[in-house]
């Protein structure tokens, strides 16, 4: 299990360019679809938690998944797996990086990858939205949140705390009235 966690997150670290949200589609594919380690809902919970804490989304997600499956050792194995590719690749190319970055072919490749990252995030979003359920209340929470982020530039951690408070009082009262 530890080796599986290490290899899966190694793969995630190795094939995700751009960091942060760009890594979500690959994490979802591997961890939710292929391995079944998390459900789509748990994956969203993991993102909520990792977004409210310091650190890269991918390594925080790795900690969450690793801990769920094999406690402390699992978390350590998953995080090491996620950072190893960066470590190896950076050291391997640090001295020749300028040469690689200035190559026009590299720039063409990246010009292709950038819009693809948007498409992949959108794809992940579509599937996660379906799993949460398209209901009026959910849509309302989503739209208010996205407006707060895009128009007022509110920090994601604040959005998570506010929506959590809303959920606690709203769904709590709903449960009591039944």
């Amino acid at each position, binding site marked *: 299990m530890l080796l599986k966690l290490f290899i899966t997150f190694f793969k995630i670290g190795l094939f995700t360019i751009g960091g942060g949200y760009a890594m979500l589609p690959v994490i979802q594919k591997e961890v939710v679809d292929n391995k079944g380690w998390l459900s789509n809902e748990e994956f969203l919970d993991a993102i909520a938690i990792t977004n409210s804490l*310091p650190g890269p989304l991918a390594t925080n997600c790795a*900690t969450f998944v690793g801990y769920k499956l094999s406690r402390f050792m699992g978390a350590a194995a998953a995080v090491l797996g*996620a950072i190893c590719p960066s470590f190896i690749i950076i050291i391997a190319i640090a001295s020749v990086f300028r040469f690689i970055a200035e190559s026009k072919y590299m720039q063409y490749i990246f010009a*292709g990858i950038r819009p693809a990252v948007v498409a992949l995030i959108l794809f*992940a979003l579509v599937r996660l*939205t379906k799993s949460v359920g398209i209901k009026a209340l959910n849509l309302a929470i989503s739209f208010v949140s996205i407006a707060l982020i895009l128009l007022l530039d509110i920090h994601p951690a604040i959005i998570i705390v506010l929506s959590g408070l809303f959920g606690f009082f709203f769904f709590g009262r709903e449960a009591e009235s039944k």
Partner: protein
Amino acid sequence: MILVRLFLAFLKIGAFSFGGGYAVLALIQKEIIEGFAWISEEDFVNIVAIAEMTPGPIAVNASTFVGYKLSGILGAFAGTIGVITIPFLTSLIASIYFQKFKDSKQLSWILKGIRPAVLALIGAACIKIARISFVDYKSILIGVIVFASVYKLKLHPILAIFLAGILGLIFYGLF
């Protein structure tokens, strides 16, 4: 002892790196360049480029690169482990409590409120990245092709990234 100072500097950077990648780049600029004058502003431009262009989390890439520039493999090690330590511990503690209370109904109410908000976070990130990524009709075309290939043809996202690189070479290299 430069390795200890490097480790401590990145420990601090990691502790304040809310929001991952770009937050860390800003902290590196403040702590390492302005604070320690360890590397030049010019090198910083390279750091940003290498962190974005190599696979993996931007924060980890940047820390490894800065550590390596300053004192070789051991420096890279100190930078990487330093930046990851506090996030690892905080995520670990959060995961422990999450697993402990995940069946409580109070937590389920909270999560019901949070999940649609997380969709909004992802959506907002998608819109922000789209604004800088869709620069011409070629990039829009690549975006549409990639979306169709993962949505309709069930292409694995990793393969989709390779496909996008090849499309970039063809569209921008040949035309």
